[in-house]
C-alpha cells in the first residue's frame, strides 16, 4: 500500500502540472501597458512554485516507497545532511527565491499603484452600487460637478446625486452605464461606492481594485487593444453580486469622441 500511495502522489502531481504546462486555463491576453510585468511575475512564480511542488511531492513519494514496511531487522538510517543542512538550505534557497520574487514584484505593483498618473490622463469617475456600475465623464468643461448623496434618485436617473441647478460644473457631466475609453490613452479612474463594498475587475486589463465606502480610491491604466471586455464585481455586495457587471469598450479616439458626443445629447 505504501508503494501505491507513492505512485498516487506522483500521478496526482503530474496530472496537476499538465494543465499548467499546456496553458489550458489561463488569464486572457493582456490589453494593458502595465500587464506584461504582472504576467511575467506570474510566470516566474509559477516556475518556482511548480518546481517546489513537484520536488516536494516526488521526494515524499520516494521516501514512502523506499522506507515503508521494511524487514524487522532492517537498519534505521539518518539523513546524512541532518537538520542543519536542511535549515541552511531552506534559508538560502527559499529565502533568496522569495526575496527575489518580492523585490522584482515591487515594480509591477508600483506601475499600477505607486506611480502617479500622468498629467494628461483622462479622468473618469466610476460609482459602484448594488448591483450596477455607473460611469461619469466631466464633459466639455473638463470638471466634475460635486456629489450630493441626498440627491441620489434612481427613479429620476440622478445616479450620482448631481445638482445641475446650482452647480455649473455638473451641467455638462456625462453619465453612462457602460465604460468607453480611447485606446492607448491613459485613464485615471476615480472610484467611489454608493452603498457597500464592491470591486472593479477587468481580467484583460490586469486591474482589480475594491471600492471603499466613504473613501475615494483611484487607479490609472492604459488599454492597448480595441475591443469589448467585461467589468465584474469581485467584492461580495449582496444578493445580486453575481450579476453585477458592466462592459468596457476600448475604441479608437474617433469612435470614442463620437460615442461621448452621443452620450452627451
Amino acid at each position, binding site marked *: 500500500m505504501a508503494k501505491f500511495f507513492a505512485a498516487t502522489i506522483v500521478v496526482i502531481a503530474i496530472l496537476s502540472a499538465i494543465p499548467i504546462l499546456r496553458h489550458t486555463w489561463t488569464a486572457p491576453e493582456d490589453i494593458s501597458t502595465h500587464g506584461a510585468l504582472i504576467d511575467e511575475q506570474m510566470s516566474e512564480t509559477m516556475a518556482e512554485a511548480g518546481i517546489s511542488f513537484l520536488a516536494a511531492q516526488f521526494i515524499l513519494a520516494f521516501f514512502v516507497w523506499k522506507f515503508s514496511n521494511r524487514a524487522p531487522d532492517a537498519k534505521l538510517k539518518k539523513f546524512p545532511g541532518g537538520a542543519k543542512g536542511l535549515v541552511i538550505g531552506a534559508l538560502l534557497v527559499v529565502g533568496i527565491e522569495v526575496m527575489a520574487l518580492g523585490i522584482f514584484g515591487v515594480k509591477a505593483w508600483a506601475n499600477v499603484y505607486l506611480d502617479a498618473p500622468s498629467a494628461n490622463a483622462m479622468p473618469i469617475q466610476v460609482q459602484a452600487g448594488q448591483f450596477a456600475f455607473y460611469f461619469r465623464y466631466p464633459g466639455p468643461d473638463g470638471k466634475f460637478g460635486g456629489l450630493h448623496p441626498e440627491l441620489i434618485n434612481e427613479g429620476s436617473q440622478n445616479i450620482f446625486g448631481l445638482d445641475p441647478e446650482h452647480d455649473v460644473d455638473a451641467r455638462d457631466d456625462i453619465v453612462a452605464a457602460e465604460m468607453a475609453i480611447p485606446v492607448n490613452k491613459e485613464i485615471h479612474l476615480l472610484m467611489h461606492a454608493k*452603498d457597500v463594498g464592491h470591486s472593479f475587475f477587468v481580467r484583460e486589463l490586469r486591474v482589480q481594485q475594491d471600492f471603499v465606502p466613504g473613501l475615494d480610491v483611484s487607479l490609472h491604466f492604459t488599454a492597448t487593444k480595441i475591443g469589448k471586455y467585461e467589468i465584474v464585481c469581485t467584492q461580495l455586495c449582496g444578493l445580486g453580486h453575481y450579476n453585477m457587471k458592466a462592459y468596457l469598450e476600448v475604441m479608437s479616439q474617433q469612435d470614442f469622441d463620437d460615442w461621448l458626443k452621443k452620450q452627451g445629447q
Partner: protein
Amino acid sequence: MHDMSVPAAHHHAPPTSFIRKHVFSLDHKVIGKQYYGLALLAAYVGMGLSWLMRFHLAWNSTAIPGLQFLSASGAPGGVMTPEYYLQLMTMHGTIMVFFVLTTAPFAAFGNYFLPIQVGAEDMPFPRFNMMSFWVTFTAFLVLMSSFFVGDGPTLGGWTQYAPLNAIGAVGGPGQGTGVVLWATSIALFCVGQLLGALNFISTTLDLRVKGMSLMRLPLSAWSWFITSCIGLTAFAVLMPACILVILDHVAGTSFFVASGLVMNDQVLPHSGGSTLLWQHLFWFFGHPEVYIAIVPSMGIVSHILLANQRKQMLSQRVLIYSMGALAVLSYMVYGHHMFVSGMNPFSSLAFSFPTLVITIPSTIIVLIWTFSLYGAKLRINSASLFSLGFISMFVSGGVSGFFLAQPSIDIMLHATYFVVGHFHLVMGVAAMFGIFAGTYFWFPKMTGRMMNETLGKAHFWLSFVGAYCIFMPFHYLGMAGNVRRYSTFTDDFLQPLIPVHRFITIAALITGAAQLIFLFNVIYSRFKGAPAVDNPWEATSLEWSTATPPPFDNFGGKHPIVYHDPYQYGVKSSVGDYVMQTSPEQVETEFEEK
C-alpha cells in the same frame, strides 16, 4: 511541579450523577469528547451545505428535492435563490472555520490529551474548561438558529465585510437579525476559546510532572501550547470587533459605516465609521486563525508519524522553533488579505515581505517531516496514511501562497477560486487530514476500542484522491479569472468554465459520501470495535503509559515521572524498538551511524 513521592490528590472528586459525568463534566477528557462531538456534528452540517452549494453551482436551475422545507423563500420549489446560496455559503464558511477547524484539532484533541501528555490529572481551571465548551456549544446553537429566524442567516460571507455587516436589513436578506446572531455567536465562540487558551497555557507551563521539561513535551503538546498563545491574542481582537458590529445594529453606533452612504435612494443614518477598520480587526484575527487551524494538526501529524516511522525526527527543536516562528509571523502578514482593499499601497508591500518570509519556516517544517522519513521503518495504517496525506496537501496548498503573497499577482488572483483552492487545501483539507489522523490514532485510547482499518483505508483513498479532484481545479478556475462567491455564472467569460464546475461537483459529492464511511466507522467502532490494548501503536508518550481508556484522574492516583525525550524510537529496550517516557530503562539507539 508535583512532588513524585506524594500520591496525587485530585482537586475535584469523580462525579456520580449522569449530568455531572456526561453533560456538565469538569473532566478534561469528557470535555474533549464533547468538543469532538460538536466538531463532528458541525463538520457534517458544513459538508451538507457544501453539497447544496456545489450542486447549485453545477446545475443551478435544477431543484434539490426537499430544500424548500429548509427555507420556503430561500429555495422555492427546491431551486436555490442567489441570496440563499450566499446564506448557505456564509454558514458553511463560519461553521467550518470556527466549529470544525478550530474546535476539533485544538479544543477537542488538546483538551483530551494535553493534560495527559504533560502528566497532569486535569487542567488547572476545570470550571473554566467546562464553561469553555458550553459557551462554544451555545455559540453553535445561536449560529444555527439564524436558519430559522427572520429572513435567514447573513449572506455576507464568513469574513462579514463592512459596511454590509453593519447597515442592517436594508443590505439584503439576513443582514439584520442574521448578522446580529452571527456576531453574537462568534463573540461567544471567542469567549470559549479564550477560556480554553488560558487553561491550555497554564496546563503546559504549570502542570508538567517531574522530568517533563519543555523540550520533553511531545510535539502535539507543543502545537497546542503555541496555538493557545495565538488564540489568546487573536480571539481577544475578534470578540470586541463583533461587539462593535452588534452595537452598530442595536445601539445606533457607526463604527463600520461611513457617512453619506445611500441605499434605496435614502441616505443611511450613520456617519463617521470606517469600512477598512473592520478588515484590519477581522484579519488581525483572521490570519492567525489559519495557524490556529493548522498548527495543532502539524503537531498531531508529527506525533503520529514519529510513532509510525519508528525513528526520531531529524530535529524536534527546529520543528518547535518553526511552529513558533509561524505564530509570531502570523500577526505580521494579515494585510495580504487586503492588498487591493484600498489601504495604502505601500502597506501592501510592507505586508508582502513577511508573507513571503513565512514560506521559510513552512518549508523547514515540510523538509523536517519528509527527510525524517529517510531510513525509517514506516508503518502504513489509516493514521499514518492521513498524516502523509497531510504533508502532501499542505505542500500543494502552501505553494499557491507564493502567488498570493505578492500584491502584483494578487491583482489577478484576489477574490477568485485560486484563493478558495489555496485555503481549502492548506487549512481546510490539511487540517481535516490532521483531525482524521488524530482520530484513527487516538480513538483506541479515548474509547477502549480500535477503529476498523479497512474502512479507514477506504476512507483515506477516497478522501485523498477526491480532495485533489475538488481543489486542484479551483486553482485553474482562479487563474482563468473565475470570481468566487457567485451563485450563478452569468458572465460571458465564465461560461466555458462551467464544465469544470460540474467535474468538481461530482468529485465533491463522491468525496463527501466517503465521509459517511468515516462516520459509520466512528459509531460502529465505538460499540463494536475490537478491544484496544493500552499501547496499540507501541508509542512512547504519556497517554500510552496509562490505562485505556484513562481513569478519571488519568494515572490512577500517581504522578508519572518522565525519564526520556518524547520520541525514543529506534532503540533497543526490553519492550522492543522503543522506550516509554516513563520508563527508567537506559537504552542505546539503533542507528547505523552513531
